[in-house]
């Protein structure tokens, strides 16, 4: 029987949750790297026991950990993340130019074909790649040195490159998203980048439909439709059908369209999940109710999913990397909260259970299906 493994990054360590395909009884391992912020843990699609973890600390900086046995043992690999000279400048909060300065890795995206190749998204926004299992990292400089780079400005959470989507068909195509620069696409393996923000409107910037400057929170794609992307922006849930050429809003009847994560059902490319959050000034779910919203129509029409989720006195947030789906026949969906709960649904979101309730604040969740 297949097994499911959840890779959970939290403010105070990593946790690994495992279950068989029924997804009823879960074993919890951790904390790994206790006391460190674990922004993300992710596994290789072709070698699932190869895991990479971003371990970071305001005191001691960035460490990348690697496991070759599914998280039983780990060893630190390379942490030399820098910026190619000349480093250049971007906009700071106060509108003045500021040199790029590495702070941490937000997201790790292993290659779809090679377990030794992995991409890393950094703060200040940069895209790195390792082809030797994480030992050495090279910046794909054309993104950060894009002509719009000097105009990029951090969002409140920092100027982070938080989303990396490797096109499942075209090996040279990569999508990334940066807060608060927007979404970008390369069609030549990173040699050049195109801002793909047409159709976005953001009231938080003076030119609401600017080429860059949008606070994109998350992108999601179904692998069978690589030209269709879904976006949770700061405000607004968006969709493109032409790989970012043009976006249109699909917020429809959502109670609020502010939020962080967005995910697509593993087998239904028009089924999309978001977790609406009250507002940009109230980062918790509205009305004290934790509700995942599902659209089966690729957006516009949304239904609340509440069975098993707290419907009173709940004021948690769900961060951008903290929602994931598994690929079992009845698609599982999982998310972690700022309150330390990890919820799972083994029926596409119809019903939910708390897998764990009292972890540190959850930063990220990834799901793996193991043979």
């Amino acid at each position: 029987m297949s097994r499911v493994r959840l890779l959970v990054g939290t403010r105070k360590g990593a946790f690994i949750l495992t279950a068989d395909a029924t997804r009823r009884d879960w074993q919890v391992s951790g904390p790994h790297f206790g006391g460190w912020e674990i922004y993300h843990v992710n596994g290789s699609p072709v070698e699932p026991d190869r895991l990479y973890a971003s371990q970071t600390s305001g005191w001691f900086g960035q460490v990348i950990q690697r496991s070759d046995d599914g998280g039983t043992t780990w060893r630190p690999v390379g942490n030399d993340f820098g910026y190619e000279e000349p480093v250049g400048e971007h906009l700071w909060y106060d509108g003045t130019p500021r040199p790029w300065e590495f702070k941490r890795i937000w997201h790790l995206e292993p290659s779809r074909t090679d377990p030794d190749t992995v991409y890393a998204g950094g703060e200040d926004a940069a895209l790195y790649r390792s082809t030797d299992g994480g030992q050495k990292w090279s910046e794909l400089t054309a993104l950060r040195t894009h002509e719009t780079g000097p105009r990029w400005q951090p969002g409140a959470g920092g100027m982070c490159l938080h989303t990396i989507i490797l096109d499942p068909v075209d090996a040279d195509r990569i999508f990334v998203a940066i807060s608060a620069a927007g979404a970008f696409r390369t069609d030549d393996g990173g040699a050049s980048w195109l801002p793909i923000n047409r159709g976005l409107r953001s009231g938080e910037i003076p030119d609401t439909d600017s080429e860059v400057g949008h606070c994109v929170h998350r992108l999601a794609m179904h692998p069978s439709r690589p030209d269709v992307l879904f976006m949770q922006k700061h405000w607004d849930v968006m969709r493109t059908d032409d790989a970012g050429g043009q976006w249109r809003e699909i917020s429809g009847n959502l109670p609020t369209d502010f939020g962080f994560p967005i995910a697509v059902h593993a087998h239904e490319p028009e089924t999309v999940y978001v977790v609406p959050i009250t507002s940009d000034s109230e980062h918790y779910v509205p009305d004290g109710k934790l509700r995942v919203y599902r659209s089966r129509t690729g957006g516009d029409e949304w239904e609340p999913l509440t069975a098993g989720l707290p419907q009173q006195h709940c004021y948690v947030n769900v961060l951008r990397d903290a929602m994931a789906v598994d690929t079992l026949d009845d698609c599982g969906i999982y998310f972690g909260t700022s309150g330390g709960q990890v919820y799972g649904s083994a029926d596409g979101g119809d019903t939910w259970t708390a897998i764990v309730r009292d972890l540190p604040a959850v930063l990220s969740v990834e799901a793996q299906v193991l043979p």
Partner: protein
Amino acid sequence: MIRVVLPPHLRNLAQVSGEVLIELTGPVTQRLVLDAIEERYPMLEGTMRDRRTGRRRALVRFFACEEDLSNEEPDAPLPDRVATGEEPFLVVGAMAGG
């Protein structure tokens, strides 16, 4: 023998317990002590000093002999009692509340 005390997170990262003992020939300075630590435990590169500039990370402190040596010149000699092993060189995570 020079005694170095690492903070718990870095002891865990380097998989060491207790004090780390290093031997230096010639002058004993902050830079050379940290170089020796990083050479033996390469996973600590970048955790105490910025990898590019070599400067102390903002929230790391260096103490010895009841003195804060964090802002001393990296090439200044450390106190004799550190050089002789009488007192340890302490790498400390700065206090943070909240």
